């Protein structure tokens, strides 16, 4: 009889622990689901202006004035805010090098495919 009561008590205790664990688990899911819609609209507002690599002051950009070899992609990139000018200049020079290499490659083997081949320049993606 004593053993039966002991087994019964242990069973009840195990059932209670299982019920508590289940309740805790389902409450987390419900609260997460309830909290998520509220977080979504707040997320973009909580992002502060990015300052990659530099703390240079941000400048409102006028329309870019391009030289004779006007490259619209450069102008588009130049009008993007929050990019330090040193980084932008490096990107522009890299873009010019890649474009020159692509153009020279086209002159070596003139085909439509080589004329419009893609480069890894970040200014055209």
């Amino acid at each position, binding site marked *: 009889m004593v053993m039966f009561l002991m087994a019964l008590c242990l069973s009840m205790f195990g059932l209670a622990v299982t019920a508590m664990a289940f309740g805790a688990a389902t409450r987390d899911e419900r609260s997460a689901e309830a909290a998520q819609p509220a977080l979504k609209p707040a997320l973009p507002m909580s992002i502060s202006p990015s300052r990659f690599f530099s703390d240079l002051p941000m400048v409102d950009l006028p329309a870019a004035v391009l030289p004779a070899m006007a490259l619209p992609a450069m102008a588009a990139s130049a009008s993007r805010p929050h990019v330090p000018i040193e980084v932008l200049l490096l990107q522009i020079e890299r873009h010019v090098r890649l474009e020159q290499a692509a*153009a020279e490659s086209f002159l070596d083997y003139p085909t439509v495919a080589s004329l419009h081949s893609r480069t890894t320049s970040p200014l055209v993606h």
Partner: protein
Amino acid sequence: MANADPELLISLTADEAAEVLALGSRIQLASGSELFSLGASADHLYVVERGRLSLTLPMQVQGREQDVQVEERLPGQTVGWSGLIPPYRFTLKATALLESEVIALSRSALLDHFARHPFVGYAITRNLAAVIGQRLQVFQAMWLREMQRTVERLSE
């Protein structure tokens, strides 16, 4: 001459090339110094003897005028062909990227020499045409690539 076969003197004999180079004067350039500026009067043609030159164009970037490198010139290459082509104005700015040396050939000295040695004038003109043609073809292809991207952006 550091480079035995400058592109401007291809197909000339050693004596003919030496005579042409003797018309010029050597210019030493410290790193960062300017050889010529955009829009300046172009009275000389230059052969790079040593070092490295940067050819730049100005761009307005973030409200500031910045020189953007569009080409580099190495020993043996020719710089400043505007010195022989009307309207004799430089269309780029040339700066030494490191300590460099060029041979400056004046237009008047070259034209006088060409008048006395027509074959030399013919050969140098052909070599110069190759330099100019290469520049034209490369920039034409670059321009067309850019136009293609512009059209693609407009079609999106």
